[in-house]
C-alpha cells in the first residue's frame, strides 16, 4: 500500500521478517479489570500493540436527541494516545479515528442485546497506548472483552483480526513493516461461535484465491484469539 513493492519481506525459506510463518499470528495477551472504576475493562497486548478498553453503562443517553425509544445506543470512541507511535499524533478526533469508532460501533451493535436498554447509552472507550499495525482489530477485540466483563448481555464475542499480502504472499496478522510496505490488508470481525462476519474492510487488491486464503487465515487466527479471550473472562481477576 505504501507503493514499495520491491522491499523484501519474505525470506527464501518463506519466513517473515519477525520469523513468523505466513499463517502465524503475533502473540496475544488479554486481561480484564484493568480500570477498577469502570463497569468493565480489558487490556489487550498483541505483538507490540497495547490497547485498553473501558465500558461504562448502561446509563441515560445525553444529549436527548441521541436516545432511541426502542434500544440503547453504543457510544464508541477510538483514540490513539499522542505517544503511541514514533510520529506524535495530534490529540483529539481526526478522520481516521472517527471512521474506526464508527465501524467498531457497527460491529459491536450486531452482538450486543441493545433492545434490553431502551433510551440508554453504553459508553465504550478504546485507547491505543502503543501502536504497531492492526490497532483497529485489537481495539474491537478489547472492546468486546470489556463489554462482556461489564455484564452487558451479548450473543457472542467479536474477534477481529487482519490478513494481508506482502511480496505476493498472503500473510496473517500484519506487523508494521508489512502493513506499510505490503500490497493489501483485509481486517475482519468474526463471531467465533457461529463463524458469522460482522465487520470487513479491504485496502489494496487481492485476487479471489488470495482473498479466500486471507479469509481462511483470519478464521483460524480468530479461533485461537477467542480461546485467549475466553480464558481472560473465565479465569481473570476475581
Amino acid at each position: 500500500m505504501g507503493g514499495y513493492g520491491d522491499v523484501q519481506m519474505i525470506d527464501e525459506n518463506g519466513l517473515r521478517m519477525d520469523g513468523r510463518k505466513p499463517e502465524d499470528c503475533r502473540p496475544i495477551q488479554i486481561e480484564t479489570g484493568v480500570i477498577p472504576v469502570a463497569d468493565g475493562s480489558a487490556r489487550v497486548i498483541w505483538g507490540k500493540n497495547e490497547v485498553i478498553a473501558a465500558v461504562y453503562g448502561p446509563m441515560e443517553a445525553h444529549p436527548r436527541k441521541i436516545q432511541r425509544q426502542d434500544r440503547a445506543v453504543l457510544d464508541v470512541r477510538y483514540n490513539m494516545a499522542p505517544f503511541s507511535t514514533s510520529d506524535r499524533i495530534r490529540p483529539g478526533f481526526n478522520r481516521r479515528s472517527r471512521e474506526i469508532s464508527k465501524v467498531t460501533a457497527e460491529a459491536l451493535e450486531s452482538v450486543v442485546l441493545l433492545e434490553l436498554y431502551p433510551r440508554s447509552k453504553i459508553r465504550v472507550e478504546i485507547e491505543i497506548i502503543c501502536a504497531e499495525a492492526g490497532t483497529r482489530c485489537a481495539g474491537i477485540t478489547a472492546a468486546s472483552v470489556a463489554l462482556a466483563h461489564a455484564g452487558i448481555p451479548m450473543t457472542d464475542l467479536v474477534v477481529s483480526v487482519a490478513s494481508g499480502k506482502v511480496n505476493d504472499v498472503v500473510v496473517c496478522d500484519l506487523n508494521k513493516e508489512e502493513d506499510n510496505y505490503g500490497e493489501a490488508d483485509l481486517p475482519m470481525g468474526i463471531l467465533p461461535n457461529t463463524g458469522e462476519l460482522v465487520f470487513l474492510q479491504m485496502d489494496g487488491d487481492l485476487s479471489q484465491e488470495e482473498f479466500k486464503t486471507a479469509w481462511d487465515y483470519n478464521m483460524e487466527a480468530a479461533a485461537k484469539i477467542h480461546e485467549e479471550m475466553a480464558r481472560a473472562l473465565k479465569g481473570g481477576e476475581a
Partner: protein
Amino acid sequence: MLVAPGDDLGSSSDLEPGHGVIVVDGRLKAVKQGRTTNDGKQIGIQPRRTAYVPRPSDLVIGCVEGMTNNIWFLDIGAPFNAILPLSLGPAKGSFGGLRTVMDVGDTVLCRIQEVEENHSSVATMKGMGLRKLKSGIVESVDPHLLGRVIGSKGSNLASLKEETDTRITVADNGRIWIDGDVDGISAAREKLLEMMETAKVSEYRGDE
C-alpha cells in the same frame, strides 16, 4: 461452570433458559459472563456484574440529584433517575418549596411505586419507615451479591448487626445504610467489604 458470552450450553430440549441465557436454533446460549446455575430444570447465569433494574415495590436508597417545582429527581443507581413527585414525598413539602424539605445531595429511603415501559420509574416515600436519612453512612455493593449480605433467612445480616451494634438497612438497589456509633459503623463497614471480597473470590476462584 464459568462461561463467556456466546458459549454453547447444550440443547434447549433438556433445560429451560434462565437469566442470561437465550435459545438460538434449539441450542442454549450464554449472553453474559458469569457462573452457571443449574437446578435440573432451568439453566441460568449468575453474572459478574449487573446494572440495577428497578421493579415496583423495591426498597431503594436514592440520592437527590435535582428538582423542579413539584418533582425531585433521585439517583437510585439504575440507568435512569427515578422521579419523586411532591404528592408522594414527605408530608410537609409545598409547591415551589421542595428545596427546604430535601435538597440536592440528600439521601432518602424510598420505595419504587411504578416502573414504566421505557424504564423510567416513580418513587414514593408514603409507607412505613420511608424517610430522609440524616445519620450513618451508605455503602454500595453489586446488587446480585445482596443475597450473600443477607444470608439464609437474614442470618448474616442479623449477626453483622449484633456484632457491631448498628442498625443496617439493605436496599434492593445494592445500597446499604449503616447507622450507629462511629466505631460500630466502621467495624460493620469493614466486615461488609470483607464479605464482598470473599463473595467475589468464591464466585471466580471456587469450584473450577
